[in-house]
């Protein structure tokens, strides 16, 4: 049990009493369920399978180290500000899970509900944000419309007077915010481990065994493992892993860059996003400005970005809030995004009995971590989709029912 008291006691006794946050077990020959992918979604799936469904003979198989994928490469934003049915209820559920996460996991993931402000810069954008905000309210979440003066009260440092795209107002989502990304992975990992889940690192899955349409297990770098149920939870590499089961997915992989500056005294208290270019920003508790923009736009698995988008993001930052100009970028990196034709994810069964998919998170996967695991665990354990994730069907593209194209850019994967 972690607590301030424990830290105090350990501090007095030389910090000798700490123990591993999770075990490193050898893989067993057989599990009731195997989750491929030890990222945020895979770990939360394992946790909720054990916690909600009492399935404890399960393993998470991770190619690298726990949390080595996008859970540790994002801009740490959590929010429930979607407007289309299917997305609305899901992200609403996720935010509620975030709100109790630390107490649930006994791990401080630093969930910080500092407020997300989406700025708009034309009448048309305002109308679209009002539609969004009203959908959020109808879902039972919070949303508040800010006029320019309202924005100025929250964000006095924006350039209100000499900017290419004047600020018409903003949509404030007060319950949105940030969380410490790595700690989310570690908290779920520790929670799952304590419930008996085997977290197996450095265990790449090299094959998925299917007999007569039924999944039987997986081949791994550490030998074959039998399993009654297998889930592919490998966003960023979904296509390659799904191909092991003969699946071709509606996914194209793209790089999304992010940037962090050196530590600075508090200057940005919210999550702020620009409406006329690709730029969003928040300040970490350590003091670094964490910001990002849009995809590099071409299919890539390189986990690194290129200059044009990096420069665009910083140009957008300079037109919106030129007070950050003297902050210096320490590091840039790229994550690999599963981009789907409508910009929304997939949590579904496959045609193979016992094989499940959780993928296509585009660049919204971080905030979905709790609810994604919750819903996938429900689907794996009960065979029916969780009520908050019914919209994430794999076949929606084929039949056109329930497309969730929040951006309205259509079936070009990189435009979402």
């Amino acid at each position: 049990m972690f607590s301030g008291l424990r830290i105090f006691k350990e501090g007095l006794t030389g910090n000798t009493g700490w123990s591993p946050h999770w075990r490193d077990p050898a893989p067993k020959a057989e599990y009731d369920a195997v989750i491929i992918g030890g990222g945020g979604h895979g770990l939360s799936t394992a946790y909720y399978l054990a916690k909600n469904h009492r399935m404890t003979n399960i393993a998470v198989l991770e190619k690298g180290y726990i949390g080595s994928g996008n859970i540790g490469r994002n801009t740490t934003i959590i929010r429930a500000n979607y407007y289309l049915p299917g997305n609305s209820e899901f992200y609403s559920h996720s935010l509620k899970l975030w709100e109790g996460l630390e107490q649930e996991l006994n791990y401080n993931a630093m969930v910080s509900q500092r407020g997300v402000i989406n700025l708009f810069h034309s009448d048309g954008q305002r109308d679209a944000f009002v539609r969004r905000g009203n959908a959020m309210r109808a879902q039972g979440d919070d949303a508040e419309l800010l006029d320019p003066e309202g924005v100025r009260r929250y964000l006095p440092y924006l350039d209100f007077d000499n900017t290419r795209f004047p600020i018409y107002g903003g949509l404030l989502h007060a319950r949105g915010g940030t969380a410490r990304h790595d700690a989310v992975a570690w908290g779920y990992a520790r929670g799952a481990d304590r419930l008996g889940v085997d977290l197996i690192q450095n265990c790449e899955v090299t094959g998925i065994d299917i007999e007569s349409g039924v999944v039987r297990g997986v081949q791994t770098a550490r030998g074959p493992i039998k399993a009654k149920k297998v889930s592919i939870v490998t966003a960023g590499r979904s296509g390659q892993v799904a191909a092991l089961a003969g699946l071709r997915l509606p996914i194209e992989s793209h790089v999304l860059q992010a940037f962090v500056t050196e530590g600075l005294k508090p200057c940005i208290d919210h999550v702020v996003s620009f409406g006329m270019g690709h730029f969003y920003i928040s300040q970490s508790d350590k003091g670094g400005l964490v910001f990002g923009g849009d995809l590099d736009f071409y299919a890539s698995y390189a986990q690194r970005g290129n200059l044009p988008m990096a420069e665009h993001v910083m140009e957008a930052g300079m037109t919106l809030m030129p007070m950050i100009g003297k902050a210096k970028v320490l590091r840039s990196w790229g994550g690999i995004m599963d981009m789907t034709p409508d910009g929304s994810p997939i949590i579904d069964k496959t045609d193979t009995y016992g094989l499940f998919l959780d993928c296509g998170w585009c660049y919204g996967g971080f905030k979905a971590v709790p609810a994604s695991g919750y819903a996938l665990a429900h689907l794996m354990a009960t065979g029916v989709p969780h009520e908050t994730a019914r919209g994430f069907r794999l076949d929606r593209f084929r039949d056109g029912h329930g497309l969730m194209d929040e951006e309205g850019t259509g079936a070009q994967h990189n435009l979402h």
Partner: protein
Amino acid sequence: MRIDGKGLVDRSSPIRFQFDGIGHTGFAGDTFASALLAKGQRLMARSFKYHRPRGVMTAGSEEPNALVTVGTGAAQEPNLRATTLEIYHGLEVRSQNAWPSLSFDVMAVNDALWPFLGAGFYYKTFMWPRSFWEHLYEPLIRRAAGLGALSGQSVAERYEKAFAFCDLLVIGAGPTGLMAALTAGRAGADVILADEDSLPGGRLNAERHAVGDMAGSDWAAQATVELRAMPNVRVMTRTCVTGAYDQGTYGALERGAGAPQPGRPRETFWRIVAKRSVLAAGALERQIAFADNDRPGIMTAGAVRAYLNRWGVAAGRRVAVFGNNNDAHRTALDLRAAGVEVVALIDPRPKASGPKGDFPLYAGAMVEGTRGWLGLREITVKTGGGIVRLAVDCLAVSGGWNPTVHLTCHMNGKPTWCDAIASFVPTPGAVPGLVAAGACAGAFSTAACLAAGAQAARDALAEIGVTSAPPDVPEADDTPYRIEPFWAVPGAGRAWLDYQNDVTLKDIKQAATENFRSVEHMKRYTTQGMATDQGKNSNVAALALLADATGRGIPETGNTTFRPPYTPVSIAAMGAGGQGMGFAPRRFTTSHAASVQRDAPMVEAGLWYRPSYFPAAGETTWREACDREVRLVREKVGVCDVSTLGKIDIQGPDAATFLDIVYTNTFSTLQVGRVRYGLMLREDGHVMDDGTSARLGETHFLMTTTTAAAGLVLRHLEFVHQALRPDLDVRFASVTEQWAQFAVAGPKSRTLLNDLLDRPLDNETWPFMTCGPITLGGVEGRLFRISFSGEHAYEIAVPARFGASLFDTLVARAEALGGGAYGMEALNVLRIEKGHLTHAEIHGATTAFDIGFDRMVSANKDCIGKTMAARPGLTDPNRQQLVGLRPLDRAVELTAGAHLFDRAAPARRAHDQGYVTSVAFSPTLGHAIGLGFLSRGRDRHGEVVRVVDALRGKETLAEVCPPVFVDPQGGRLRG
């Protein structure tokens, strides 16, 4: 302490500057660090977590400790490294992250609490009660964290970006880089030599080595003179190559020299495109972990030599040297030669021997601890003969040199462990077109660097077909580098690895204990390597010690990935040009000046600016102006600039066939001189855009698009042609800016035009949806009888150079007829009254079926999007369909973005029936109207729905109606 006769600073040029309000004097060529060290000031900063007093540790951009703030007001710049900050007259420097003062910082209480503040302590507490995080714990943590502060003011100085191209980019101007640049420059290649330092030469300026028959620094200066004289070589000092990107592209940051000057950029961010590049970035020295190894006065051995030889500064009066390699011994020798007292040379290698000096050499010994809160006073040395305490004010430490492999890792390359130098070297081929040479490739002697630089340049040039003469490499020191790995002194105290972030060996061990054994886990759990130096000083030692703690080898433990930028880059530099209006181009119509002159507020429409409305005398609100403009169009005649709509000229024998493919409806049957409204789908079956296309000739069409979609549609046409139907003979050109086009709308529109046109119009030859050439005053133009307002209307187009005068003429004539100019607000009201659509309705997720245009999808031919539009989900009768909305209470307004619910249903998602897309007050009808999408809307005309705008706290009831409010039969169009 400044040593007479030493160094490259210009002692004839004293420079006055301030630190925390106290005046100091240095010399031209000094950095802030060298100038303060010359005064004997060691304390310059505080650490991040424990607020430990810190001095300068290095002499370069890797400095982790001595970060300071420069300037005030909008010019305030935090987190500058004292080691690269060149002093200039009037420079004002302040310490940061310390209160109330640098020498007495209350937050240093954290240092006493260290047992409770170890690795990741914050993950284990601050969880109760839940609401305290945002309101208590987090604000406290945020205030304590951070280094320097931003001013909060907009940047007021100039920053720039630029492109450069070359055959060979040489990164680093030390012996390797200078020799590479000389070799390539003499061969006639186009060369860029970039170095982050103000002075080329690298370690040649920091050492006493000779090159050929002269001092190394003199050779560097001479080489630089030769290079600068070559027209094919560009020497870029103060220019740090920050990142390696694809296809030979590099990012580089150039700092302005000296004091900020108006008109000169503070920084320039370069994008350098090089056919080949030589990485000659040198090496960085690492520390050794021992108890309290972070005190002011403890520095790298190489930095102590650099301050001595380049700046003529002794970093202390009584100096000890502690190192596990023979390079460290040079520090003792150089200091002695300069007359500085060397208290001891301590080498942990049992068999260490070195050149004799008049100082004690303790072989097999190690520094176990230190004393001195604000500055080093004493070290404790464990020798074979017992513990020795030595009074010193400077300790020069060398744990060995790490090649500067960073750029070779920017494309995910992993460096290779090399036992001989106990460090990583670049893996060849990690960055295509880049070769690492010299010290950054593990060749540490000056002679080896010179030879490697010449060879690397020759090899690179040969690959791009440039022949070079065999290099004339001068003779130089070739002493082999000898090292035995030594990472940490055993002991109980806190031994720092990552100085800035206060990560100690205990933290690494705790991480390993808690199963953060992966090097990435260790980094993320302890924050080692996440400070402003990004692990340049600590990574290799930290992972060696992690390897030790986890019982693995170093290669097996691996390394974290170095990512761009190599040194911190300001957002203002990389985002140069974006501030203010520079973020996006501004597009102006030919009537812009006239509109501004009429006091019309100009609003952004994509990249364009368009007039919102034209205020008349006595009007105080936009609504008054808008209502008047709507009425004048409905009753008289209005003029509106519609040039921003996309215009695409389409020509070729197959033009008509082509349009049948991209439009849902048929254009091949359109007669010359006629115009047709067309609907365009994306291949996924949703509406892409709409607009009219006019057939100007048998093989010539003019397509119009919405303002926002002009580029997208042209791209789409080119795609469909080149990728799908290259067999069709047709070509496209955007002519949006070539033609100025004005809507002339209203019952008197023909009257107005007939006053102007060389040949008057009549309804028989110019019925609705016709087009053709016209002349006015001899100017050839085009006329289209089309209408977005629903009135009898035309659009008249002339070459753009006539636009301004035509607009003036049209407006004057309109005013004479009781009409006038109208802006975007009135245009929007007119089109809503008429039920015409914009991107508020065609927002990318609607189908032809949704907007009631499914009959426009021809059954007789294929078109883009037709098949996918037939998917069951896109033709589901329950889909939300376009409807009109009228408030039951005619006095209330509607708001766009409100959602629609059944009259009795709660306003919850499960009951959501649709939403309002566009609203207006209709002066024609005298009440508010709206367009929206409603589930099964077309079957529900006459029903009453709840319109809920929870965001604005508004709710009303509205009647569902057809989406055309004015003249549904279209009689006015044809009149």
